[in-house]
Structure formats: C-alpha cells, structure tokens
C-alpha cells in the first residue's frame, strides 16, 4: 500500500514489493491459489481515495491468469490489465487483455524469445496509448524452468521482462513503476532474480 502511495505521490521513483501471500487470484468475494487479498487493487483504490492516482496499467506475467484482479477491475476503464496466461481475449474497450503464452514444445524459436516477443507485442504499445499515471508489473517467476508454472523460461527472459517493464514505464508514465512479487516457489530463483531486478530499478550494480 505504502509503496504505491509513495510512487503515486512522487516520493519514490519505483518500488519492489515483496509479499507474504499472493494477490492476483483474490477477487471481490473469492480467493485461492495461495492468494488472500488483492494487494494491487487495494493499493490502487487507496491511492485513488487519497486523490493521488487515476489511471493504472497492470502487466501480469505470473504463469497463471490473474482472475482475481480481473474480477475487481473488469468494469474499471481506468485500469489497463494485460495478463500473459493461457487464453486470448480482448475486451470491447481494449483495456482488459489476455494473451496465451506460447507452448514451449510447439516452438521453433527459443521459449525466451517467443515469450518476450509476445509480451512486447501485447503490452508496451497499449500502455503508451493508455497514458497511465503509474504502471504495475506483477512479477511471477513460476514461469521459470523447473518451477510449478514452467514455461521453460530462463532467468535471461525474466530479466528481459524487467528491462521491458522499465522501458515501458519510462515511456508511458515517467518511470513510475511498482514491481509486485507474484508466484514462484524456488529460493534459488528468488535469490538469483530479485536482486538484479531491484538493481535495474535503481540503476545500480547488483
């Protein structure tokens, strides 16, 4: 909550938010998938209540569909919600978008390249057009090789997503970016990925 407030208020350039439980499978009246309450949507509504925030662009690259987040923002035209998951969908107003991640075993190209190409095709242009005040990247590393949402991605792809999120936030909303940790179970991956992502946010060496 405080992270979004501080970025929205211009007190911080960007933030990385660790979590104790997931959020994107928590909807208005349901929860599951090891998610309890929808941290991102609560933070948006709190910041809006304080008059610090209007439009928000959310990129969800957790392995699974952010059904709870979608439930909470489905009627909110001031939230762009783009989810890379296992279905294709675009709402009539274009603010709610799902894109099916490529099936790794059906690819000629590398899974990393195919995934990054899909995200690049799906999100940055929409975010720039949407003109958000702030951007949220819901970062799950469960898509990594050997984790429970395995998309055969390597760490290079996930760090490539971080670079893309930073570039998009820079172009769309003056760099105002929240990275919110999502799924992923392996400690070795968390330790290998999170510090370099924060280093990128801060523009320092890991």
């Amino acid at each position, binding site marked *: 909550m405080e*992270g979004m407030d501080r970025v929205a208020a211009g007190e911080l350039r960007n933030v990385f938010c660790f979590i104790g439980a997931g959020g994107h499978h928590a909807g208005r*009246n349901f929860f599951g998938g090891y998610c309890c*309450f929808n941290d991102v949507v609560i933070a948006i509504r709190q910041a809006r209540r304080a008059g610090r925030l209007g439009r928000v662009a959310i990129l969800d690259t957790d392995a699974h569909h952010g059904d709870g987040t979608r439930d909470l923002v489905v009627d909110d035209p001031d939230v762009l919600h783009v989810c890379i998951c296992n279905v294709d969908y675009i709402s009539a107003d274009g603010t709610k978008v799902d894109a099916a991640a490529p099936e790794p075993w059906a690819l000629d190209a590398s899974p990393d390249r195919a995934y990054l190409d899909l995200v690049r095709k799906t999100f940055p242009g929409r975010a720039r057009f949407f003109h958000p005040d702030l951007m949220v990247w819901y970062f799950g590393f469960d898509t990594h090789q050997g984790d429970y949402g395995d998309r055969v991605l390597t760490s290079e792809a996930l760090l490539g997503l971080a670079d893309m999120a930073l570039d998009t936030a820079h172009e769309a909303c003056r760099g105002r970016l929240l990275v919110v940790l999502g799924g992923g179970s392996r*400690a070795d991956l*968390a330790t290998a990925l999170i510090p370099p992502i*924060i280093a990128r946010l801060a523009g320092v060496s890991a």
Partner: protein
Amino acid sequence: MTRDRPLGGATGIFYHPSFSRRSYLTAGRRLADFPDALAPLIESPHVKLFECAPVTDELILLAHDPHMIPEVEADPF
C-alpha cells in the same frame, strides 16, 4: 539507513521479515535468503528499504466483501 538523496529519485524495497519465514506456499521458504541477499543493494544511496505495515480491515474492504476476512483468517494455507 541515512540517505542524502531526495526520495523522488530513489527505489523503494518493501519487505517484512515474516515473508522469509513462511511465504506464499505452505512449504514456502522461497525468500529464506532475504533480507541478506539485499545487503549490497541497500548500501546504495539510490535504494531505500521499508518494512511493510500490516493492512487494516478498512483497506481490505476497499476491494473485498466483509466475509472474506474471516474466511482468509480460517484458511489453513
């Protein structure tokens, strides 16, 4: 941690030690290496570490129906 740089240019990290004891999955100690793994980063004047505050029921109700609170509290996971 002291900072000689305006917060407006800084990166914030929001973390709580409880996240490293039991995080996300029941068997989850995925953040067991934290906050130690952040040590080199938080030496930077461009990075500021914050401890997450507990969320209030009032804030939860901005997004969720009231029955969600006791149901989450009763959830074994």
